[in-house]
């Protein structure tokens, strides 16, 4: 019905009709799927949740005399430097050598995104071509050569809600879980969530241009643990852990408004990453996918103590109501992902597209629809 090229022409002319993934629901209620598919060109999605599998590549530039950095820290948080001389990768969950769980890679990334100075320390063995053995200096995102985010797994298509079956409080990446099924936490932007609005990855694929951390980024690969074969509902939406994407973008374009460090008590550090993905409304089928609502999105429940296999399922509408009925009792539910920020992101992306500043991309290759997630078996070398 519409091609991405046609939609892009409308965007350039300033005539594209854009709605957020929440607004499209009301539009469908008003004029129906067929009419909405004709009149709306793009639906924007958004999410702002803690995404542990995130990090930043930095090339620091060469000092005089030069150094082949072996062990690198940024604000006392170790970065991986087993690359070329002055390349390193700092991961979000890496913890500070001096402050432990109160500070980590996520905080370093947030400070770098905000344009702040960060202390770099590195040591080396010293070689003929890289004689320097140590360096201590200050860097920020403007004075390094490259500084780009590369997140191997973001924007989980669906994620199980968490509960605790034991008699003790447990402290997890899904927040603090009270004993004896005392609360349930969940992490999603639901009807706003990127991959829930394109359940079979018809438009989101390699090379898709996205909103990332306040700037423009790209989908660069399938995410780790990409699990498209998860059981799905009649509407095509997976019922638990499913698709993921790897994303990349220039940290210089990002801000700490949409890149924010997180500490989960007695678990460690993570990073809130803001992602927004535009979905071209190619036909009625795409429109139907984007008009999904929280009452139609189901997730499973996981006991984070690992003791009990849970079979309960809830819709995000139920979870967002503040409590759900669980085995005959009302249990409090709490979100971990910021829906108000997700809404803001979908709104900003809509604005960019309406202004003609952001064009849609045709995927270079699709995300796989077949891919199994393997368990790590413990075995000897054969």
């Amino acid at each position: 019905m519409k091609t991405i090229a046609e939609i892009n022409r409308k965007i350039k002319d300033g005539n594209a009709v854009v709605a957020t993934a929440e607004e499209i629901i009301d539009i469908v209620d008003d004029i129906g799927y067929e009419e909405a598919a004709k009149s709306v060109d793009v639906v924007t999605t958004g999410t702002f949740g803690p995404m542990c599998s995130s990090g930043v590549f930095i090339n620091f530039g060469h000092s005089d005399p030069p150094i082949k950095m072996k062990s690198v820290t940024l604000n006392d948080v170790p970065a991986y430097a087993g690359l070329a001389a002055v390349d390193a990768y700092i991961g979000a969950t890496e913890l500070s050598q001096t402050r432990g769980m109160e500070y980590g890679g996520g905080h370093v990334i947030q400070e770098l995104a905000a344009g702040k100075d960060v202390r770099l320390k590195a040591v080396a063995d010293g070689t003929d071509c890289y004689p320097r053995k140590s360096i201590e200096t200050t860097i920020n995102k403007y004075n390094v050569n490259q500084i780009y985010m590369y997140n191997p797994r973001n924007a989980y298509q669906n994620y199980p809600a968490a509960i605790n079956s034991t008699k003790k409080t447990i402290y997890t990446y899904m927040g603090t879980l009270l004993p004896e099924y005392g609360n349930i936490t969940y992490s999603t932007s639901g009807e706003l969530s990127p991959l829930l609005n394109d359940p079979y990855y018809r438009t989101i694929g390699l090379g898709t241009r996205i909103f990332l951390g306040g700037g423009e980024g790209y989908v660069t690969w399938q995410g780790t643990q990409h699990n498209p074969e998860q059981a799905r509902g009649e509407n095509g939406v997976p019922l638990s852990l499913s698709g993921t994407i790897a994303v990349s973008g220039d940290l210089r374009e990002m801000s700490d408004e949409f890149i924010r460090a997180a500490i989960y008590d007695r678990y460690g550090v993570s990073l809130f990453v803001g992602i927004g993905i535009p979905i071209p409304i190619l036909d009625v089928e795409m429109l139907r996918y984007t008009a999904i609502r929280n009452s139609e999105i189901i997730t499973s429940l996981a006991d984070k103590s690992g003791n009990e296999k849970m079979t309960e399922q809830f819709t995000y509408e139920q979870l967002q109501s503040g409590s759900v009925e669980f085995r005959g009792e009302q249990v409090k539910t709490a979100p971990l992902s910021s829906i108000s920020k997700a809404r803001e992101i979908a709104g900003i992306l809509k604005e960019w597209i309406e202004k003609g500043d952001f064009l849609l991309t045709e995927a270079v290759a699709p995300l796989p629809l077949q891919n199994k997630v393997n368990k790590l078996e413990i075995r000897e070398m054969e």
Partner: protein
Amino acid sequence: MMKKVKIKLHYPRKWISKPLMSEVISRYGIVFNILHADISYDSDGTIIAEISGDDKAVNDSLAYIDSVGVNYKLYNKSIIRKEDECIHCGACTAVCPSEALTMDEDNKLTFDKEKCLVCELCIKACPLRIISTEF
């Protein structure tokens, strides 16, 4: 002058059958507002309450509670959230026992100071470390 204090009473088992609260109310004419109570016949309990009234009446009430051997702790502190830094994720609402911290219709975090028990569980549950009893 009017006074309002928030207290936590450690209610011994032996006091369960005695009407401490109505005693205090009738003697001193204060308002005794229970915010949270965890009382049973087989263990010591706690009551978190707000006592308000005339300055002297409130002080006399506290002195009376003290004199009958019920221990209490006065809450001098209050929970403060750096609102402009809050991202409204909602992680703190998972542990809040009194529904002082809740998500509103627009998925924004709201804090009802009146309902807060100052249990301080939210301080460590906040991933951004922007909740404290003091900054």
